């Protein structure tokens, strides 16, 4: 006799309705729009699609390769050796990754390095080095040293040990890092929009341009479909690869770091200092140039075209708070359903919730303006901004809470039930206290994501709902040293606020921040 689990239905309802209306439905509208008006016969369209698609693919591939090359020295140093400042070096190398893309773009503009492919690739490497360093070093540091010693005893040189033992063992982590970097750069928007000028456009930028500048929605929809196909393909390949290589060998529980001696000491020093210096240049230039004029004071003055820049800070903080609250509630409900052992349904649910992560933020914003005129026209509502941010942030809340909820042994919940706790009570007494710390980390992530979100916001922000990133972009788009100075000043403010929240997260977290 099966009892109908009405409780689950109630818990699942909010996430399902939210994702359904604000994500799946707009996606369907984009698909119908793009497919209905698709005019494949016209050669101009095909040529443009091909050009943009090729550039997107090409720059993502080159960015990924360059990121690996740039990250290699520091990855080697922190994976093999325990040295003074190792933890700080890791933390500092992670700073660029947590910065909003608009800040990274502005920092490279401050280097006077615009409208060039070099600037785009440079910014992508700057942004993603931490992904490679952290993902690969987490695994590398835990490889059983006896494997390498065994190879040495069998006559392998140090280089051969690296090539034949270490490198093959690192393949899963390298594939993971490569997929993440590829996905980030394939869907890169803020950086390319700011640094690419009119010459270079990824699919993301082209969707934005067609939709916002030329108001050619069908073409934008077609581009969005191409983009989704690319992203889904990359994700599919990665998940297949992960299944095939699912950790089949044992890892040491702790790490096996040695103290560097002799030549290794010099190597570690050069690798660490060199990498950190290179990463510090764009940010130092941004900060110092933002101080060359009265730009911070100017943020408080009203401007007839862009409004008062400082108001964007108020908007951003408000939206971030709303998005954080929404994402926490929806994410935790969703995580409860996913870990609730209701079979294939929960797996589907998990996948659907992760989709906004794979789909680009631009597609989410574009979907809002295409679809949210039904049943009531929401497109002018300022609340669309925090809702879009919530969509982007929910997967992060889910990802930070699901592992903890999974680690609660099912017997613990059963024991509570047998002792008289109703399902709701079990959740409150067992799940909630255990997951609260992880949920807090997820909420803080949601806050940071909302602060820096630019792709979706650029479609839906109105003058009254301008956020810090959209304000920075407006200031950058306007000629004049003063506007640029204000953009730099606002970027520094955004960077400082973001860094402060991320540092708080890092302190609250136990263990390595190794998985993304």
């Amino acid at each position, binding site marked *: 006799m099966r009892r109908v689990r009405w409780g689950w239905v109630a818990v699942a309802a909010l996430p399902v309705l939210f994702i359904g209306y604000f994500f799946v439905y707009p996606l369907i509208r984009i698909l119908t729009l793009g497919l209905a008006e698709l005019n494949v016969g016209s050669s101009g369209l095909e040529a443009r699609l091909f050009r943009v698609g090729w550039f997107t693919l090409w720059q993502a591939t080159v960015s990924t390769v360059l990121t690996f090359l740039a990250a290699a020295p520091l990855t080697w140093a922190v994976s093999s050796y325990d040295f003074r400042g190792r933890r700080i070096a890791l933390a500092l190398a992670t700073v660029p990754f947590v910065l909003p893309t608009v800040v990274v773009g502005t920092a490279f503009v401050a280097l006077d390095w615009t409208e060039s492919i070099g600037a785009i690739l440079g910014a992508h490497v700057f942004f993603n080095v931490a992904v490679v360093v952290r993902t690969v070093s987490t695994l590398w540091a835990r490889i059983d040293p006896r494997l390498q010693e065994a190879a040495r005893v069998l006559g392998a040189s140090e280089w051969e040990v690296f090539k034949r033992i270490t490198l093959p063992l690192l393949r899963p982590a390298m594939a993971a890092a490569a997929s993440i970097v590829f996905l980030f750069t394939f869907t890169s928007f803020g950086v390319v929009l700011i640094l690419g000028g009119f010459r270079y456009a990824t699919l993301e930028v082209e969707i934005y341009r067609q939709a916002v500048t030329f108001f050619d929605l069908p073409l934008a929809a077609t581009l969005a479909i191409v983009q989704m196909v690319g992203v889904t393909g990359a994700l599919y390949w990665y998940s297949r690869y992960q299944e095939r290589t699912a950790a089949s060998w044992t890892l040491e529980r702790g790490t096996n770091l040695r103290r560097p001696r002799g030549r290794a000491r010099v190597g570690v020093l050069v690798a660490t200092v060199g990498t950190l210096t290179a990463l510090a240049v764009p940010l130092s230039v941004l900060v110092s140039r933002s101080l060359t004029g009265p730009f911070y004071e100017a943020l408080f003055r009203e401007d007839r075209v862009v409004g008062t820049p400082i108001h964007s800070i108020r908007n951003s903080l408000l939206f971030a708070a709303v998005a954080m609250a929404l994402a926490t509630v929806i994410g935790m409900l969703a995580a409860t359903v996913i870990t609730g052992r209701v079979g294939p349904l929960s797996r589907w649910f998990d996948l659907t919730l992760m989709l906004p992560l794979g789909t680009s933020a631009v597609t989410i914003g574009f979907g809002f303006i295409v679809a949210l005129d039904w049943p009531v026209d929401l497109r002018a509502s300022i609340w669309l901004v925090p809702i879009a941010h919530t969509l982007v942030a929910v997967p992060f809340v889910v990802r930070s809470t699901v592992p903890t909820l999974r680690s609660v042994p099912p017997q*613990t919940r*059963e*024991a*509570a*039930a*047998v*002792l*008289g706790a*109703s*399902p709701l009570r079990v959740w409150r007494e067992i799940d909630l206290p255990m997951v609260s710390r992880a949920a807090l980390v997820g909420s803080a992530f949601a806050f940071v994501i909302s602060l820096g979100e630019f792709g979706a916001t650029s479609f839906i922000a109105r003058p009254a709902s301008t956020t810090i990133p959209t304000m920075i972009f407006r200031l950058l788009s306007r000629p004049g040293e003063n506007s640029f100075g204000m953009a730099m000043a606002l970027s520094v403010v955004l960077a400082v606020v973001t860094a402060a929240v991320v540092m708080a997260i890092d302190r609250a977290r136990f263990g390595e921040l190794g998985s993304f």
Partner: protein
Amino acid sequence: MLQVEQIDVVIDSKPILENVSLEVADGEIVAVLGPSGSGKSTLLRAIAGLVDVATGDIEWDGKTIVAVPPHKRGFGLMFQGYALFPHMTVAQNVGFGLKMSGHHDIDAEVEEALSWVGLEGFGPRQVDSLSGGEQQRVALARTLAPRPDLVMLDEPLGALDRNLRQKLVTDTRKVLEDRAVTALVVTHDRDEAVALSDRLALMREGTIVQIGHLDELLAHPVDDWVAGFIS
């Protein structure tokens, strides 16, 4: 009185229990004995309401309970491995069931339950600071504290070493008898089953093969397997 009547349990389309019937009279202690994988734990979980019964009926005092959710059955189940709540103290663990049923004087009840198992004063301790034997006794106290109608123990001594088991078998039996509880104990250890219970139910491959007192089973085993398993 507990009556299990011809129940089948199917999990992931695999039959785990087939046509299982069993009665436990008030104040009686019955041990379910059988090799691992024979379905003993699933039987307890079915009675507790943690798994659904495909066919058959489970009755308590003549009333069917198969549609009653686990938290409303008023039974106690001590889990294999204990399933103590890691984020709570000993007292909070033992008092959990009392809190759920809305008791008022939880502290005194907890201290009394701890005294049954010889752990007076252990209330403020964290559960991860306890030894294996202490955890076993906390789990027993947590199960008994709400004074459940039926107490079920799943391999109550399974995780402990030999010396400790011998001592705790006697202690556990005494605690159960002092409370005069109706109990169902699951174990794969013949000596433990004999020491803890009044009657034995032998289980193999999802069915109960024979039920009776030890001497009956020794005198008239239904087959060679039963004879071999209990001698």
